[in-house]
Structures are given as structure tokens and as C-alpha cells.
């Protein structure tokens, strides 16, 4: 019957097309990573990591950018974690679904959708100019904190959600106050989830560029305080590539960046899997 054969051919055609689409997508993605790693890995000698950039990055290594990346990430995590965990605790333990909680969630969801260039504009006009912090680790770190806040809130909430109600009931029934229950019965169990959220945020911070150029500057000089301007690895990579300063160095920085991000995300995933398996 012709219609049956047509259906069969459509089915086969669709299946083939989808297989091609899926496999080629995966192939292209892997290709992108391989290309950069292939050209860049040879450059990753120990000296690359331990020397500062010389002559605008044409020679030397990426030491100051590594320090810049670490400094910015640390500031962001230190600021965002208490705010994020506190918000999640409030939403889960101190309030029920109400106008207040809906407003807070709306704010968090919106914040999560703001593109990084807007954060960059904001950080520039607020931290660099209005608060007079200048292009600095502090300006960049605080801007970054605002960017990772929604992630920390979300993952902490998810972690708290998985904690059985009985822990709370037991703690209250033994004469615990709300805060005692939160700090002794809930948070300790939620820590792995919170930690995973932090690691994911670190991964994101490392790749962030647009917001950081506008707030932390792009200085290659070794920083000596929180108010020093600094260049991160991602920014360095961008500048090397766009200004055409040194393709070789660019490949090297890019490879280092990819490896770092892959490493961090793999750890986060591994932690998350262990955590989920531990719970069930």
C-alpha cells in the first residue's frame, strides 16, 4: 500500500536526519574544543603559568591574569554566598508562598536573565564612578557577585528542599528555635548542594568577560590591593585575539581557559552526582 510505504520512508528519513543533526552538532562542538586545545596545549609550559605577560602579552606567561581571575572570583564568592544562602534560607524556612516570596523570586529570576553587558554598564556607573572605586578588583568582584547571586540562591534552595521535614520537626520538638534548627539540623545537610552551586558559579565567573572589562579594567600590572585594576584570563584572551597581538599566546590562554572550565564543571557534576546518590 502506497501510503504505508510513504510513512515508512518518512520515518526512515526523519530518523536519519535527526541522527545526522545530533551527531554533527556534537561533532562541531567537539571540533571547536579540539582546535583550540590542539594549538594551545603545546604552549602550556610551566613558565606560561608562572610568568607575567611581557610586552603587552606577546611574550611571557599569564601569571597576573591568573591572579586576577582568582582575586575576582574570590571576592564574588565571599560577597554572594552569604547573600544567596541567606535569601534561600529566608524563602524556605521563614516564609510561606506569599506576596513577599513571589516578589523576591521574581527579582531573582529577572536578575538571572540580565545579560553581562548590562551588568558591565551597571558596574561601571555604580561601582567605578558613583562609589568611586575605580576600575578595580573590588568593582569587578562586586559586579560578578551580583551576576552569580541567582545561581547561589537557586542551588541553595534546591539543596534545602531535599532535606526531609522530619529533621525540622525533630529539632523543634527538642526545644530548638528556628535559627538553631536552621544552623544545626538543616544547613549541615545542605552544605554539599550549596558547595556545588558555588563551584558552578566559579566556573561561570572564570569565563565572564564583558562585565569585567568595564569594571575591573585590563591592567597587566601585578595588583597590590583590592583597588588595583586587573585583567582576567578571559579578558586577556579576548584582547590578544581581537587586537591580533599574538595568536600563539591567544591559543595558549584559550586552552588554559578551556581546561580550567572543564575541570571545574567536571568536579561540580561529580559532586552533584555523589550528593544525589548519597541522598537516595
Amino acid at each position, binding site marked *: 500500500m502506497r501510503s504505508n510505504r510513504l510513512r515508512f520512508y518518512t520515518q526512515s528519513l526523519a530518523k536519519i536526519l535527526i541522527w545526522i543533526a545530533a551527531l554533527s552538532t556534537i561533532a562541531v562542538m567537539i571540533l571547536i574544543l579540539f582546535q583550540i586545545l590542539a594549538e594551545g596545549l603545546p604552549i602550556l609550559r610551566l613558565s606560561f603559568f608562572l610568568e607575567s605577560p611581557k610586552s603587552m602579552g606577546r611574550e611571557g606567561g599569564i601569571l597576573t591574569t591568573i591572579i586576577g581571575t582568582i582575586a575576582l572570583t574570590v571576592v564574588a564568592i565571599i560577597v554572594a554566598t552569604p547573600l544567596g544562602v541567606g535569601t534561600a534560607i529566608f524563602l524556605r524556612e521563614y516564609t*510561606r508562598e506569599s506576596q513577599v516570596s513571589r516578589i523576591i523570586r521574581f527579582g531573582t529570576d529577572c536578575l538571572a536573565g540580565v545579560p553581562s553587558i548590562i551588568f558591565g554598564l551597571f558596574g561601571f556607573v555604580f561601582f567605578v564612578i558613583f562609589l568611586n572605586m575605580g576600575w578595580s578588583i573590588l568593582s569587578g568582584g562586586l559586579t560578578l557577585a551580583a551576576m552569580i547571586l541567582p545561581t547561589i540562591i537557586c542551588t541553595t534552595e534546591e539543596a534545602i528542599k531535599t532535606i526531609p521535614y*522530619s*529533621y*525540622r*520537626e*525533630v*529539632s*523543634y*520538638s*527538642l*526545644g*530548638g*528555635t528556628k535559627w*538553631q534548627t536552621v544552623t*544545626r*539540623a538543616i544547613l*549541615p*545537610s545542605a552544605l554539599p548542594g550549596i558547595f556545588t552551586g558555588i563551584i558552578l558559579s566559579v566556573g561561570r565567573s572564570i569565563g565572564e568577560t564583558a562585565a569585567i572589562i568595564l569594571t575591573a579594567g585590563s591592567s597587566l600590572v601585578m595588583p597590590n590591593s583590592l583597588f588595583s585594576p586587573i585583567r582576567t584570563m578571559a579578558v586577556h584572551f579576548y584582547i590578544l585575539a581581537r587586537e591580533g597581538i599574538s595568536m600563539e599566546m591567544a591559543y595558549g590562554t584559550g586552552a588554559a581557559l578551556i581546561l580550567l572550565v572543564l575541570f571545574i564543571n567536571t568536579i561540580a557534576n561529580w559532586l552533584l552526582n555523589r550528593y544525589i546518590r548519597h541522598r537516595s
Partner: protein
Amino acid sequence: MYQENKVVIHEFNFYYDSVQALKDIELNIRPNEIFAIFGPARSGKTTLLKSLNRLTDLIFGARHTGTIFLDGKDIYDPKLGHTQLRRRVGIVFDLPTPLPMSIFENVAYGPKLSGKNRKYLNGIVEKALRSAALWEEVKDRLQTSALRLSGGQQQRLCIARVVALEPEVLLLDEPCSGLDPISTTSIEETLVQLKKEYTIVLVPHNIQQASRVADRAGFFLNGELIEEGPVYQIFAKPRKKQTEDYITGRFG
């Protein structure tokens, strides 16, 4: 000389939003007795139990009218405070609920919350575990996780946890449900021992348990206290027909 009642429940009504769970409960619990609250499911037994230490405060939409007195004082008096109350009236739930910590930390949890000095903790934990008849089995592994204990041991751990606070009243909601007969017997024996120091309100797993362990009992049906009295009387010669029907198994 008639002793003062430990707990007095007076004209107590309880509502979950608009549903009434307890109707006009009048009940006295005497000191150092085991009082069993029995009846079919959904009669309000757990609700009454949890009202006695204000655990019902945690439930959104819970309201009550009437009063509950502990040693003559209204437990809902703001000056008393629910944290204080819960240290005097402890509860053990129907499922073992060990916290994800070591055995020692579980038992020490309550005393630590109330600010007990660290140096007393060892003594407190040992005494509580002995009261719960668990000390001999775990004394060598106090730092291991409580989650590794068997169901019966975990439940005895929960009893120890509560007893560590040295409360005055113990509330037990079907403490032996899901446990094997040996653990059940051991817990029932523990309860009889504990009676010497505490007043116990128990929701028994079945009538047989109530008659084994309790001194007096109250039959609850659909949120009302139908009748109460000494165990030998209420199970042998109940005054109300509903009680008799339930005891003889005409409905469950």
C-alpha cells in the same frame, strides 16, 4: 490525698483551617501514669498529642480554642514560650527519625540546644541511653552514624534523645509501628521503667499494647473523647457502645 493532675485539657477544640479535628476535649492526665489514647485512624489522636507540646504551632492554618494546662499553667501562655515547653514535654514519632549525625550527637542535640555545658554532655548521653535500654549496645560506637542502627535501635535512640532533656512528660505516637516483636517488647519494657520518672501519653499501635502497658486509656472517635478510664475497666467493660464496638472489632 488526691494528687494534682499533671496535664489538664479543658474544652479543647482544634481546627486545621476549617476542618475541626478535635471537639470539646476534657481530659486529665495524672503524674507518673501511662495514659493511652486509642481509636481508629483519623480520630485526632496525633493532633491531640502534638497539641500537648505545641508542635501544632508549626502547621499553617492550625487554630484552637480552649486550654491545656501543664502543672496548672497554660501552655499557650506567651511567657512560657514553646521552646521551654518542648523541653518539658518531649515527643517520639511513629517513624524513627535519627538526625544525620553520630549516635552521641543525636542524643546530645537537645541538651546542646538548651546550652548545657560541654563537660556534662558525656554523662547526660550515657544516662539517657541507659534509660532507653540502648547503652550496652552502642557504648563502644557512640561516634558512628545513627543511620546505621536497626529500626528498633533507632527508635530507642529517639527515646534517649528526648529523655536526655529530662522532660516531665513523654508523648509517644505509635512508637513501635514497623518494629519487630522483640524491639517492641523492649520498648514497652522501657516505657514501664520510664513511668517512674515521667508522665507518659501514648498512642498505642493496637489495643493489646495499650492493655499491656497503660494504666488508663481514652477512646477517641472522629475527634471526640468518647470515654476514658482505667485500662482494666475500659477494655473489659466499656461504658459506651462505640467503645465496645471498636474494641470488639466491629469497625476499625
